Structure formats: structure tokens, C-alpha cells
């Protein structure tokens, strides 16, 4: 199979869905060129009526996407950095998430809120967050967090085809990562985890960049510890069954995520494991996530964001 980049996979996925459905369009700041290149080249194919550059107006971008979705279109609203989504909290957390439910289920809101999350680029507290927790916490929003080019393309396509609001967070530190991606049409359904590597001693439930940390460590430790890596791929819906099945097999689990530790996705997943598989656990669940501080710019970043060494220590302690 051919290999393409994570960035190219998302770009290709959006382009395919725009070809497939004339109701799909992209709206956001400077999307014709695109800061990360996610939508670059699409304006040449689809024109400015469907790749829409806006003023710097996050609330208008998000709210317009909600209004457009309500009236029959399938907008993809691009926020560039996930941190900027907080500006549009009303539009994302209240309008998009709630309006179908509070109006008796008569509305359909097929839209995607797309943004780059993640750190390790040393670009500071308001350009590095992984705000998965706040979206996972909010009923009414689906949340996709792909870690590979294959998943990125399959999930952006599933997100665009979904009749509900989907937050699609791609990791800015993985844009150049390459991997096999089929040329034929496929989707990765929301709510289906994948066992990225099989093992028998310790399960690592890993999200986003943590998947790559975990896979690297699994290889490094393979002679001593057999590590199973489970990637939820989407956090809502969450495929807890696949996670629990792995935990029942290994009896030991680390949950690793890049969002802030306190009330983050790792906390929620760990609790669900405890509720469903407590009797199968041979050791307390461990959690690897960002420390409860803002993410500093520059070299201080490593004191807050989870590091491979942290994950390695957790795996070794569990396997101990």
C-alpha cells in the first residue's frame, strides 16, 4: 500500500468528501492557504464559494457552521489551533452540542469542528493544548482524535458524513508522520478503538501522540515486557468494550493522554475501567497526562507535558 503523510491523508479525505457531496464546504481563517496545510490546494479545485476565508471571528465561524448545518449543509469549520475553540464556547458547547436535544430531536447538525491540538512544538500555552476533556465532557459532541494517517483520513471522512457535530482534533506534531493509506474509499467509524499492537503483560490505552510513545516503548521493552497498545481513536463515542477486553487479558493498564491530568480523558477512561473490570485488575490503574499547569513555551514545556520516560516508568512499575 502507498504511504502518505498524516497531513496529506486529512487533506485527501476532505477533498474526497467535497467531491462526493456538494453540501460539504470548509469555512475558517485563511483556509485557502491553511496554516498547517490541512486544506491547502482545495480552493483551486472547489473555488472560494466552498473554501471560505473569513475574518478573524471564531464565534461567527462556529455559529455560522451551526446555522448552516441546521439548514441542510455540511460545513467543516476550521479553527487552526484547538486553543482558539475556547473563543467559540457558546457556539460549540451550547449551540452545536445542545440544540438538537433541546428541540426534541428535530434538528440535524452535520458539521465538523476541526483544529490542531497538541504540544511538543514548544510554542506556548495558548497554541499547544489538547482540550479533549472539555469536549468529551459535553453531551452532544462527538470527538475524534486520530494518531495515524490511516485513521486520520478514515475519521475525517466519517466525521463529515456523520449527521451530528464532530470535533476533529488532529495533532500538529504528527503532520509529517507517514503511514499506509488505501487509495480506495473507506471510513474509520467513530466509536471503534483499535489494538495497535498486541501484548500480554500491560495494556497502554493511548490517545494521539501517546500512541507513538507507547508503540516506541513496546518495541524497546519487548524482550522484558509484552505491551498491548489500544488506541480509542475517538473519545466520544468511546469504545470501552475493546479497552476492557484488553484489560481483562493483561490485568494491568496505563491510560495515557496529553490533556491535563485533572478531569482529563485519562481520568474518565480509568474510572470506566474500574467500574467494568475492577476484579480483573492485578494492580492499580496508572495515569500519564499533562501536569496540572499551563503548558510553558520553550524548553520548560517538558516539565508539564507527558514524556516517553514517564510512560516507560509507569509500564515498568506495573510489570514490576
Amino acid at each position, binding site marked *: 500500500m502507498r504511504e502518505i503523510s498524516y497531513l496529506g491523508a486529512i487533506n485527501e479525505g476532505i477533498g474526497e468528501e467535497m467531491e462526493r457531496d456538494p453540501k460539504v464546504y470548509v*469555512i475558517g481563517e485563511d483556509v485557502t492557504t491553511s496554516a498547517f496545510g490541512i486544506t491547502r490546494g482545495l480552493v483551486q479545485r472547489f473555488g472560494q*464559494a466552498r473554501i471560505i476565508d*473569513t*475574518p478573524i*471571528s*471564531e*464565534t*461567527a*465561524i*462556529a*455559529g*455560522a*457552521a*451551526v*446555522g*448552516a*448545518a*441546521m*439548514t*441542510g*449543509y455540511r*460545513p467543516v469549520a476550521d479553527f487552526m489551533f484547538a486553543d482558539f475553540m475556547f473563543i467559540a464556547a*457558546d*457556539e460549540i458547547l*451550547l*449551540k452545536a452540542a445542545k*440544540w*438538537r*436535544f*433541546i*428541540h*426534541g*430531536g*428535530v*434538528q*440535524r*447538525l*452535520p458539521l465538523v469542528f476541526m483544529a490542531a491540538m497538541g504540544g511538543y512544538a514548544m510554542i506556548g500555552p495558548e497554541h499547544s493544548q489538547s482540550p479533549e476533556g472539555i469536549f468529551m465532557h459535553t*453531551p*452532544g459532541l*462527538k470527538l475524534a482524535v486520530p494518531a495515524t494517517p490511516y485513521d486520520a483520513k478514515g475519521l475525517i471522512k*466519517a466525521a463529515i*458524513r*456523520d*449527521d*451530528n457535530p464532530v470535533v476533529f482534533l488532529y495533532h500538529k506534531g504528527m503532520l509529517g508522520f507517514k503511514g499506509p493509506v488505501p487509495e480506495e474509499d473507506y*471510513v474509520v*467509524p*467513530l*466509536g471503534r478503538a483499535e489494538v495497535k499492537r498486541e501484548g500480554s503483560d500491560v495494556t497502554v490505552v493511548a490517545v494521539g501522540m501517546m500512541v507513538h510513545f507507547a508503540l516506541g516503548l513496546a518495541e524497546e521493552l519487548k524482550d522484558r515486557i509484552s505491551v498491548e497498545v489500544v488506541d480509542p481513536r475517538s473519545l466520544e*463515542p468511546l469504545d470501552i468494550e475493546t479497552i476492557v477486553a484488553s484489560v481483562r487479558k493483561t490485568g494491568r493498564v496505563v491510560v495515557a493522554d496529553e490533556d491535563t491530568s485533572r478531569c482529563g480523558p485519562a481520568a474518565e477512561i480509568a474510572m470506566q475501567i474500574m467500574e467494568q473490570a475492577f476484579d480483573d485488575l492485578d494492580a492499580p490503574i496508572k495515569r500519564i497526562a499533562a501536569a496540572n499547569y499551563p503548558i510553558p513555551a520553550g524548553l520548560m514545556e517538558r516539565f508539564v507535558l507527558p514524556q516517553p520516560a514517564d510512560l516507560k516508568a509507569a509500564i515498568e512499575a506495573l510489570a514490576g
Partner: protein
Amino acid sequence: MELDRDQLVTLYRLMLRARKLDELMVNGLKTGKMVGFYHSGQGEEAVPVGACTFNLREDDYVYPHHRGHAIGFTLARGVSPKTFVAMHYGRVPRDVEGPTSEQRGIFGISGTIGGAFPMALGWALTAKMNARSQVSICFFGDGSSGRGTLHESMNMASVMKLPVVWVCENNLYGQWMPIKDAFPREDIADLAHTYAMPGVVVDGQDVLAVHEAVRVAVQRAREGRGPSLVECKTYRYRAHAEGMPDVSHADPRPNEELEAWKQRDPILLFRNKLTERGIFDPDEAERIEAEVEAEVSALDEYAQQCPYPEIQDPAILDLLLYAGGEEVRS
């Protein structure tokens, strides 16, 4: 544009229905028939009725606002008030005839002030892409002129030349904040200059003045000539929400201010005008009033017969939350 006799009478009847239904809600809270809270729109009926009646098409999009919980708008759009009354009584409406509010382009009321500007922008974007000369009309109070969403949405709508009509229903107060202390100019319509669109101020107590100003703005939007701003000066008779303090900052609103505005009550003014012009037959005003009172009384009875909500199967909540279950269309 000259409205014919029947149209004029229709405007009068709609305003009266909005008023009487508003009074029913206020009374319903006092007597315990109604659940939740209520934001009365008494005194402001000329704005929704004048703006939305005979100016809009069925496929236009309308954002109402929280005053009167949008009853003036839904009535003007031909939506049965059965749903309004039953749901305010905490019950499930039954046997509702006619279009739903969604089928007339009314999708809900934002719980946050100014939360609707961006959605109305989205509807205007849809209208432009549909290319069927639809318009999006967004009503807002003076209080929401403080929101950043207003700037973002008005700015983008003008830049993109979208078919949207912004209508400010300026009743001089936010919750308790007088607009004179919340906005630096006399007229909110002055914003129009900044966003390169026409802006007019009209007497919000005069249903025909509101109708004509909005008609011109809607026409402009339909012709693809971009947004407009219409400001209607009006006044809120009751407190922001029933049972809450009725104050300006921390002091009671001046009674003489309220009484002066009641002299210019939009229903009273229009009734006098229709009588003076000989539009009303003798006793017609009384007859309409009796008919509306009978309708409201019947709605009160109807709503009390509607059942309270029950959930037999908790899975219904999942169906409300997400469309299409977990299936991905392929």
C-alpha cells in the same frame, strides 16, 4: 406598500393575540400552571408582528428573541400557539395542526444573549448558497449590542454581502442595565455605518412603520444587495423576568416613564388608527377582542388537558442526543 383592509386587521389581531397569550403566561406563573420562568414581551408586540407579517416567505429564516418567548414571532409565522402554551405548562402538546416553528424557519431561542448572531449568519450563508432569494432575519435586544458576536457576525455578513436583516428591538433596558449606560450612542442603528449597510430608526410602537422599514430591508436582501439594520424604539412594560426586580441599575424604574410609554401602547395606537380611518366596522374591535379572549381561554383549557412528559424507555434520550444512532452514512 399599502396593506389592504384584511391585512391591517390581521396585524391588529396578531398583536392582540401576542399580548393576551403573554398575559396568560404571566398569570400562569402566579397560579402555578406554568413551569420555569417567563420573560414578558408586553409593550413590544408591534416589532415581531410588524416585521414578520406580510414581509417574509415561508422558507425565510427568523431568529426571534426571548421577549414573550417568541410568541409574537411564531404567531406571525402561522405557527399554532398550542405548542407554546402546552410546553410552558410543562406538558406535551397534542393535536397540533399546521406548520411547526422549524418549518417556518424558527429554530429556537438562544439561552445566551447575543448567541444568535452567528447562527443567523449561518442561515444567511445557506440562503446565499441556495440561491432562491431567501433571507435570514435576526432580532436582537439593545442589551446584546454589547456582545462581540454582534461585531463578528455583522462584519462578516457585510463582507460577504449576505441576505440578512438585523432588527434591534430597543426597549431601553437589558436585564436592569439602561442602554444609555451600555452603548455610547443614542441609536444602535449607527452601527450600520461601520458595517457599510443601511441603518434606520423607526417608532417601534407603530406597527406600520416597523412593517415598512423591514419590508425595504428584506427586499434589499432578497435582491442580493446585502444586509441592513433596522432599530425599533420600544419599551418593556414588565420586569426582565417575572418575579425579578424591576429596576434601572439598582433603583425602581420610574413609574412616569412606564405610564408615558403606555400612552403609546402599540395595540392602542393601532386600534385608534384603524377606528379613525374607518377600517374597523362598528364594534369590530370589541368583537376581535372577545374572539381572542375566547381563543386564549380555550388554549388554557387545552394545555391543562395535555399530558406531562413520561419516559418509558431511557433510550429515547440517546435518540434526542444524536441523529442516526451510531451509524455512519456510506
